[in-house]
């Protein structure tokens, strides 16, 4: 599957099928810090992603002066 990442923006190819939680863990991320979006919909941690899927891992942590 194609995985789009941010900060910095980059794309990765990851072999599927794979559950969302496993993908997040494999990328060294924590579930609290990201959303996983397939197409234009959010997907839950136990969702099985297929090899042909296109997913975005969107960081949710913002920092700096608030």
């Amino acid at each position, binding site marked *: 599957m194609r995985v789009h990442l941010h*900060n910095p923006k980059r794309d990765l190819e990851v072999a599927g099928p794979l559950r969302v939680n496993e993908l997040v863990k494999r990328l060294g991320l924590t579930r609290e810090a990201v959303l996983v979006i397939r197409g*234009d919909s*959010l997907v*839950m941690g136990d969702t099985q992603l297929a090899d042909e899927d296109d997913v975005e891992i*969107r960081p*949710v*942590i*913002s*920092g*700096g002066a608030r």
Partner: protein
Amino acid sequence: MIEVRRHRAAFCADCFLHHCREQVRRVLEKFHMVEPGERVLVAISGGKDSLALWDILLDLGYVADGVYLGLGITDYSDTSLGFAQRYADGRGAKLHVVDIPAEHGFGVPDAAKATKRVPCSACGLSKRHLLNRAAIDGGYDVLATGHNLDDEAAVLFGNVMQWHVDYLARQRPVLPATPGFARRVKPLIRLSERETAAYCVIRRIDYIVEECPMAAGNKHLRYKETLNAIEERTPGAKATFYLQFLNQMQPVLAGVADEERASVGECTRCGSPSTSEICAFCKLVERAATDSLDGR
């Protein structure tokens, strides 16, 4: 569907939007943030939190305009203003724009360099001053900011790490209006930033996802990572940490906050409330101007 582990719940899209609005409504009511008929100015950065807050306040029926501060952070500021303006246009809402370089002759990177502060410190100082000024000058009763549960937990963590008692006393969901200060409120304190981001995705609100280039290495980002590592193992830890601080510790600290408020005077240059003769923002403007003239 989205899971919110601290509530041990998974929501469909409609129920999740209802959940977010309810969390905000509860905070607004519990802390008496906005009285009937009051006008709200929402501090808009173009990011997920401020746009989600604006959207929820409008949906809840509040009279809420936005204010965007141009910080002079090159392309990032232009891009974030674009997101803010597109939301305002799409919603038919009013967005005020204050451009710091155009109005004060410096941007956040210049201010940080001139004062030898870290950029987030110079930025925060400028925002506090100019957002308050925008609210007062515009005749708004309330200034609302998009600080979420993660922001507040991270600030609390930092303040506890150093036992900054005066900062702890000041860390409240509502700072009451005083002469020269609009009331400041934080209606998102019961929503995590994962929830505000999910809210925007579900509501199809486009926001700037990329992190501010000046924030890299910021200590609050490190605190958030630490708290998220705890949350991963103990869902609900962040909410307990922060919300119990409000319940248990804020009453104990009330006297400290009262003493601090009593010591506030007026800046001799701009008339803003200040604990010294010249307020921190006016000193920042002066140093940035001197630095610019020196060509440093």
